[in-house]
């Protein structure tokens, strides 16, 4: 199963958010949930089942992994800590590139206001 990696386009919205959360630091499950909630301003609230289902897929596809060496600083009451794998980072970046293309296009068509306020 490992031999065929999913194309970046196959990332589900939840998977993208999980990868984004892990991009800056390894987190435990609930940490991921809180981060996503904060970033999306409460638009995406994940339940345990939905979250771990996404985690299961990402783990299986080799995009994230449970941080075995982080056991020392992991709080056992919060569950395992996950970190982003290189494949995961690549998939995320590929996905964001596609999004960026779409957004650039949308701006050109005046579907979105302004053009890159931060750059």
């Amino acid at each position, binding site marked *: 199963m490992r031999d065929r990696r999913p194309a970046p386009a*196959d990332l589900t919205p939840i998977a993208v958010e999980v990868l984004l959360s892990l991009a800056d630091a390894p987190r*435990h499950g609930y940490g991921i949930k809180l981060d996503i909630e904060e970033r999306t301003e409460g638009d995406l*609230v994940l*339940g345990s089942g939905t*979250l*771990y289902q996404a985690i299961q897929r990402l783990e299986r596809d080799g995009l994230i992994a449970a941080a075995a060496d982080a056991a020392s600083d992991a709080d*056992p009451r919060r*569950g*395992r800590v996950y970190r982003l794998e290189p494949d995961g980072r690549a998939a995320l970046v590929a996905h964001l590139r596609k999004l960026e293309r779409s957004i650039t296009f949308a701006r050109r068509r005046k579907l979105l206001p302004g053009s890159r306020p931060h750059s």
Partner: protein
Amino acid sequence: MSRLDRRVFSWLLHAYPRHFRERYRADLEAFFETDRRHPRYGTGPLRGVRFWRATLIDLAGSAFSQRFGEARTHAPISSGSRSQLPVGVAADVRQAWRRLVHSPASTLVAILTLALGIGVTTAVYALAYGVWLKPLPYRDPEQLVTIVARESASGRNAGLSGPEFDAIGDGGGAFDGVAGFMYGTNLARIDGERVRIVAHRCSPALFDVLGVAPAIGRGFSRAGASLEIVLGDRLWNRQFARDPSVIGRTYDVDGEPYTIVGVMPPAFRFPQTLEADAWLRAPRWRPDLDARFVNVIARLRPGVTLADARHRLDVLTGALPTNAGGLKRWSLQATLLAEEARTPYARPFGTLVGITLLLLALACTNAAAILLTRASARRGEIALRMALGATRARLARELLAEGALFTLIATAAGVFIAIEAVPVIRSWLPAATPRLDEVRLDTRVLAMTAAVSAATALICGLVPLFAHRALSAASAIAGAGPRLAGDPSRRPLRIIAVTEVAMTVLLIVAATLMLRSFVALVQRDHGFDPDRLLALNVWLPFNDNRYEDAALRTQTFKTILDRVGAVPGVVQAGATTGFPGSAMGVLGVATFQAPGGPKVAAAIHACSDAYFAVMGARLDSGRGFEPRDANARTVIVSRALAARLWPGTRVAGHTLVVPANSALGPVSETYEVIGVASDMQLAGDPTPRLYVPLTRKSTFWIDLVVRTSGDPRAASPLVRAAVRDTNPDLLIDNVRGMDRIVAESIALQRAQTLLAALVAGLAALLSAAGLYGLLSYATVRRMRELGVRMALGATPHGVFASVLRDALGLTGGGAAVGLTAALFAIRLLGHEVFGLGAPHWSAFVLAPALMLAVAVGAVWAPARRAATVDPLTVIREI
């Protein structure tokens, strides 16, 4: 509370497939623990509800996709839509929830309807299971048989005599074990205090045959002649405060020292139909052939069928010991104990379960109808989504999710209804019903509820689905706009309406018939007047040898009658052996024959002179007993006996031969019939009875009946005191008002009728609500069509009539189906289920009339509106 929450959640994780659960259990539990503190769930008492709602929706959605989406997602992910499935299912559930909350009124009605159906079904099933279907609490209860002796001539059943019991042996190899027992009420003495206990004498093998071991101590020794007693839990609790050191102590029963060897567990009950405080070891039975007191229970050897056992008993019957001259021939009859215990309850509970299932079906139909109308109202939305590419499977999933969520909530509410309903229904049943106190909502009952609601969920989800099955994107969009006629979504609604009416009519007819036969039962002439009548048993002291003297017994009873008769508030007192409904039964049964007539078996009673007057029984002809009968051989016969022996002739003056070895004496004697008394009987066909003066056959106990001027219960303490004044050692038992005895005798039928009426009432209510909703909805949907018709020249009157005709046609069709079904049911189940007599026409008119009235009520307002609609307004909308 939080620990309970955690345990519930851990248990709920079983919804996930094993590999997922094992990998993430700790993580999921940690998540759960942390999430409960999330501020999102707010504060206040509803915080827990919000938290659990979110948790359950997430769990249901992700578990569903793990189980049913996983097979595919195990394979490499190849298409985006598939990997989105899990989110999709959770979203389905969430969306279903939103839709339920969106239209709270119809949701509430539908959920309440279903909850009532599920609740009543669960409660009735809990009772039916506990009393009727639950296996008896013995090892392999289906292997146990009871054996009675049947008199070939009269066909009556009796216990076995000692020699007959010995003759059974192992039943020619049919039985693994055989035990006898004899009903008994005994006087026990504990630390000088005298108490009455119900203790049955039993073969040493009894507990082994039943396969139940004592909770503490041991069962009876198999050999020897030792006097041993095994206590029941209740007696142990009452008299010994559950002291385990009672084992080995001596217990004085009827003046004999019994050693306590064991205590049975609380749930042990034997025999099933009778309370027992203790069991006494009886190593052997009296060798007297006429003492038929031994009841027999045996365990079939593995592989031996009941038919085999019966056959081998028949062979044994040929070798049974007979008394002098072999005049009486008895045969041995084996019956399965389980069957014997179930038979009295099969009919009432079978009927009730059937009726409640019908109610449940009705509730299901109702809920499905509500979901259907909601789905119909969403046709536009569905059409749009299909046009935008939503697959049919996706829509089906949504509808199923809605049905499932719906049913889940209704089931929870239904279980609460059942929890409340079980004690109420239980209180309607006769208090003497075996195992009534054990009735509860146990796992088996709840498993049935779960199965029922799973089926309900499927129906509730599938019905709207079928309604939409013809929906293609194109036709749906076309249908989303105004339609003129032949609306395809109306057909399922029509079918539902007809089904609903049919089921309700069937239920109402059944309940009406039951009610009628119950009323007949209540109005039955019992042959005596139960009002202001007190009844009680009085026993002479068991261990007082003076009472071996018959003259003293007669004198004692006379004194009691005199003293009770003198109590203020007492009109008159009488005595008998076995009044109708007495716990004591009869003195004996004997066969009588008029010259050239048939043999008639009759029950023998002894009674005081005033007995018939006190009971308010009528003497059809002749006279009652008088003091001069004390030493004469005179009898009074019941009307039923007179009619069988001397049909159509004057009875007084006839003579009657009482056969030898009857309850009246060892030799055959001739008696003069002096009168005929009315049949005193609580239920069933009147038993032929024969009465002799109490002085003729004095017993060790009497049934006292006391006519009072006021409330008999108020007189009870004075009556008791008057009896005790005669001799403080006398035992008084079963003090009850006769009206209560009469009520108890029909309590089972009363409970059955009450429940049936309740169910029919609920059904009428549910289907009235359902029909109202369906018909008014259907009429509103026809508004445009009607407007066009009026524009084309139809008169308001014609439109009104057309709407009414449509509704009455549907209802009439349903009523016809329901009546046909009712006729079939009556033909099939006959008066077994529906009670006495021929079905009355009123039942067949009432139900359809009720449904037609509901139908008219439902369409009246919409029809009026349709008739007054402005055609131009409607046309403009097209």
